[in-house]
């Protein structure tokens, strides 16, 4: 029973979702809306489980006075504050908005900006022409950078034509190849799970 019930449930629910995507039946649409509401409820339980894990891990760090205990305390305080502000004062309250406007948004912007430096250092390592493939990457990369820079077109007026061709023919062909094969792979992975062929995510073997 421990093996069969989750597989049968996943199969039925998955089939309903697939039917709703392809067919226009009112009854199926109504069931799908109901199931999607269930997802929100199940997700709320998962969130509680995850929050408990987070609280346990960081409480243990604080009580063991491990390195980073201060950060853990800060995390727990902000977590409790955000939850209390959202539940008791409401999501439109100044306290709840403060968490997003003054802490999360600026921190996220700063983090996003860091990506520029990481891209530069990754490009520096990748753009070393140590073999034919890396040399091709280096040449096309440099050409694209020149073409995209405002001064590039002024210096080499013919460059955008070549780089546009690289992007819209060579690059797009490669991307579409990856996308089509990934989509087929996704269908197979999903079908394996819904048909109960693949049970590894349930912590069960095939037998």
């Amino acid at each position, binding site marked *: 029973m421990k093996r069969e019930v989750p597989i049968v449930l996943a199969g039925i629910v998955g089939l309903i979702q*697939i039917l709703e*995507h*392809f*067919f*226009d*039946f009112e009854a199926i649409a109504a069931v799908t809306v109901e199931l999607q509401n269930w*997802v929100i409820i*199940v*997700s709320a339980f*998962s*969130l509680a*489980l*995850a*929050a408990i*894990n*987070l609280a*346990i*891990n960081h409480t*243990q760090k604080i009580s063991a006075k491990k*390195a*980073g205990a201060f*950060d853990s305390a800060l995390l727990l305080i902000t977590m409790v504050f955000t939850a209390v502000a959202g539940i008791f004062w409401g999501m439109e309250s100044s306290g709840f908005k403060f968490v997003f406007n003054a802490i*999360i948004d600026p*921190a*996220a912007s700063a*983090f*996003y900006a*860091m*990506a520029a430096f*990481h*891209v530069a*250092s*990754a*490009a520096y*390592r*990748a753009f070393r022409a140590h073999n034919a493939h890396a040399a091709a990457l280096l040449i096309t990369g440099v050409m694209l950078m020149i073409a995209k820079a405002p001064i590039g077109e002024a210096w080499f007026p013919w460059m955008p034509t070549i780089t546009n061709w690289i992007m819209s023919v060579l690059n797009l062909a490669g*991307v579409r190849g*990856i*996308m*089509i*094969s*990934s989509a*087929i*792979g*996704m*269908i*197979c*992975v*999903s*079908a*394996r*799970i819904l048909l109960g*062929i*693949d049970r*590894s*995510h*349930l*912590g069960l073997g*095939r037998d």
Partner: protein
Amino acid sequence: MLIEGRVAGLVFTLITIGTMLYGINKAKSKLPDVRRIAGLEAIDEAVGRATEMGKAVFCTPGWADITTSTAGATFAALDIVGHVARLTARYDTRLVVAVSYPNVYPLAEQTVQQAYLVEGKREKYDQDMVRFTSSEQYAYAAAVLGMIQREKVAACVFVGQFASEAVDFAEAAVAVGSIAIAGTTSTYQLPFFAAACDYTLIGEELLTAGAYISKDTARLGSVHGQDLAKLIAFGVVLLGAILCTFNINVVVDLLSK
């Protein structure tokens, strides 16, 4: 009533499932050959290196939920997390798994716990191994970067769906001198992983990982079926391209139905 514009999608989905079932059936009599995937082979090497150095292995199944269209990538990533956990259990190496979405957390926990159980190391499983971070993109990213830096891990495995944090993860791994193995189906993030990581699983390589690792007959058979579906798709694309060149749009019209 079939929804207009989705008929071709339904037909191709059914064809793919059909080829997959054919592949599974065929595998019962003859196991298909699967080409070597360097990125998956490298996981054993990376865990071995971490064991020798006495350092931890870091793993994350990406920044995606199991309730969206990217669920397949997350499930495939969990397969790899399970494989890494089995290796760390076998070699008594410390493992850190960072999870972003609450719905993925119980699955990741179950997967790692099961891996330690299978390896007969149940007592070595620690609740601190699988850590929930946040479904907020940059909170998750900051947590992952912090874990990599603090633990000074010797091997990093980033698999699943990622967004702009991908390049930050790869660079953080390089900064601590770790082997970085990545895999994603996101075509936007693949170039960053390919440029910055030691090994990259490209698109469907990630999705076939579970079959490749487990060597399970049915799952390997489904990979064979997957290849047949790809051949059909390739044939349709080629035929469509040739016909379009001569201004005949039969294939395009059929696919838009």
